[in-house]
């Protein structure tokens, strides 16, 4: 049975992973769009992303767009697998025994 992942279960990180796993595999989303999407502050989102990145669940790519630095974020295969397992574990809690 899939186990709940305490790193993913935190509400903000859960929403981050849900959003990132919705993107088709190689695509990345801009940090500021993710921030607006989740209604988080720069610092708060940055801290949660750092936690997920340290666990290997997301990858952060720095790039320049129109000579301005931007960060693009994507879920890694390990992150997608962990998130899928977490969702299955949550659903299992709701199933009648």
């Amino acid at each position: 049975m899939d186990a709940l992942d305490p790193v993913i279960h935190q509400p903000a990180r859960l929403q981050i992973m849900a959003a990132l796993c919705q993107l088709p595999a190689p695509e990345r989303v801009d940090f500021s769009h993710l921030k607006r999407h989740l209604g988080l502050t720069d610092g708060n989102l940055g801290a949660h992303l750092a936690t997920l990145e340290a666990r290997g669940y997301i990858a952060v790519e720095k790039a320049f767009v129109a000579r301005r630095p931007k960060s693009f974020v994507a879920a890694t295969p390990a992150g997608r697998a962990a998130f899928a397992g977490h969702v299955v574990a949550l659903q299992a809690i709701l199933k009648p025994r």
Partner: protein
Amino acid sequence: MNVTPEEAERSLRDIEASRLAMRSLVRANRGHLYLWLWGAIWILISLLNWAGVDRRGALSNGLAAAGIVASFAIAFLQRSRVRSPVNLRFVGVCIAMLAFSYGVWPAFLGFPHSAKAAFGYGTLVWLQLYVVAGIWFDNYLLWLGIALTALILAGFLFLPAAFWMLTILGGVLLVGTGFYVRLFWRSGPWTR
């Protein structure tokens, strides 16, 4: 880790809400804007030629040039929100096909001599890219490229009197596919 059923239910609701919001962002960054843009340009160029407007050749070229500029603008705006790694091999294939289509073949076979032939050739060059992209990335561009190619060829070879009417239909098909991509399609047009 202990999670109550209420907490699990709330988490699943949050996940669904986050997914829905991201899905709308993903859809806003699909290829529909290009399809609407070029569908509209096809229709306008076809109408100019069908109506026999003066200086239709120059106007058609101007519309095509404006479309290219607008396409770059769309690419720039979308790339600042959601980006995919560039597939350099595919870009190389596109450049090679365009170079042969606009440089090599006309040098051997000559340039198209009529408005219908010029429009047909110009669109078929890009439609072959649609077909290749559709095969490469396994997406809707394959059937769109085949359908539009069949339409152009049918009009050019078998129904020359209805050629511009069929190209207007082609433009409508492009715009309609844009709506399909915007509303229903979930995978990226340039990625798998």
